[in-house]
């Protein structure tokens, strides 16, 4: 595959599919009664954009999938379906979180199957899975809460930066394909940004967080457990989506929208940048040892 084709599948196709799905959903939504405004387009757009990028770069994933990398594509589609249902129909709060809980448990079981079967003792597996499940649920809540309060680009840009940060860290840590796939998510988010416009606008909270969480957590877990992503970088990138809350600090609260937005972006950039720096530091000695005579 030429560099041009790689870039096309990595950037152009996911962003185009994502933007087109969101735009189409809004157009269809406007013509339908009920005032839904096609909010389902966000989850569908991000999930389809990601699947298109994966298929273009690595081929269509098989089903059942082979390994964590392929499973993430199907799980993203599953998350897209959950987002789509949540966007078109408002189920009771408890059932929403029950379904999400089951989905996160399934995601962990599928992606970490190899570690559970061969790498961990029973106690280790229970500890890891319980801890990661709680972290996953908390991250889902955080992404949704951020998407509800930060409309349009206020949510897409920080999350896109986190995805890009993961991409660089994965590439530095021996998983170029994982890095490309994080880049696919960043590109799909870029497409969503193009569709919703640069001004604060339609909320992406319905459905968007489900797909973003699935891809970032799925590739992140695979990168940490099956590649060489350092623990420090993983923790920083897991914390990066929480940093936009910095604009709730007293003296920042009363500042203008753009000042608060700039501070939020800066907080994400600094956190993701530190993760990239630590991954680079961890990669350098490894390669020096390798290159030594």
């Amino acid at each position: 595959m030429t560099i041009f084709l790689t870039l096309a599948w990595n950037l152009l196709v996911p962003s185009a599919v994502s933007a087109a799905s969101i735009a189409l959903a809004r157009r269809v939504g406007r013509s339908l009664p009920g005032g839904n405004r096609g909010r389902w387009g966000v989850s569908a757009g991000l999930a389809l954009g990601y699947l298109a990028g994966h298929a273009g770069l690595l081929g269509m994933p098989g089903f059942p999938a082979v390994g964590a990398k392929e499973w993430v594509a199907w799980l993203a589609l599953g998350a897209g379906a959950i987002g789509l249902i949540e966007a078109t129909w408002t189920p009771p709060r408890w059932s929403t979180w029950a379904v999400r809980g089951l989905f996160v448990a399934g995601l962990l079981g599928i992606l970490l199957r190899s570690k559970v079967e061969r790498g961990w003792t029973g106690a280790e597996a229970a500890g890891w899975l319980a801890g990661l499940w709680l972290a996953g649920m908390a991250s889902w809540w955080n992404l949704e809460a951020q998407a509800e309060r930060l409309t349009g680009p206020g949510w897409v840009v920080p999350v896109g930066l986190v995805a890009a940060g993961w991409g660089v860290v994965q590439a530095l840590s021996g998983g170029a394909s994982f890095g490309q796939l994080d880049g696919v998510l960043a590109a799909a988010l870029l497409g969503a940004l193009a569709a919703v416009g640069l001004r604060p606008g339609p909320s992406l909270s319905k459905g968007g967080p489900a797909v973003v969480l699935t891809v970032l957590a799925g590739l992140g877990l695979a990168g940490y457990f099956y590649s060489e992503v350092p623990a420090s970088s993983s923790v920083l990138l897991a914390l990066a989506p929480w940093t936009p809350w910095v604009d709730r600090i007293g003296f920042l609260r009363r500042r203008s929208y753009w000042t608060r937005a700039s501070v939020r972006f800066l907080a994400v950039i600094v956190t993701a940048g530190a993760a990239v720096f630590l991954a680079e530091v961890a990669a350098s000695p490894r390669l020096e040892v390798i290159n030594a005579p």
Partner: protein
Amino acid sequence: MKAPAKVLWLAVATLGVGSLAVAADAFQVDAVHSSVLFRVKHMNTSYAYGRFNDVSGKFQVDEADPSKSVMDLTINAESVDTANAKRDLHLKGPDFFNAKEFPTITFKGKSFRKTAAGYDVAGDLTLHGVTKPVTFKLGLTGSGKGMRGEALAGVEGSAVLKRSDFGMTYMVGPIGDEVTVTAALEGSRK
């Protein structure tokens, strides 16, 4: 012990002894004197060669009755070696062998068919978490006695497979899809 239970016990015991006999007859792979090599095309120009340094298992070719032959190999994916440590690190990673998620490569021979050149050994190759049928062209390369009087035997087999069939789809094109695998095995039997 009641009669049916006695019969069952005897049957289990007989099967167990039978299995032990087959296992004892097979040659255990000598990792030091065995090589599992592969070659793949780079940029559609030249072949790059690599090997796996950690191979274990057993084999037995019964020339009188090929159906009684055995071929059971396990390769440690982490032991991939292409004489370039940086490339080896990449090959072990999730872009290629994904050795942390899929630590072993196995081949289990299922049928041996005598041919003019040797044997066609059809079996299941599990690579990168995917199991597919693969047929190796196998030849007997020699037999004799070792330094301690143990029986030795050697075989060499090769097969051509597509790595994309096993879900290894990263960089298909610049790095060829078709991979030739050659296993030259020496085994000993006490």
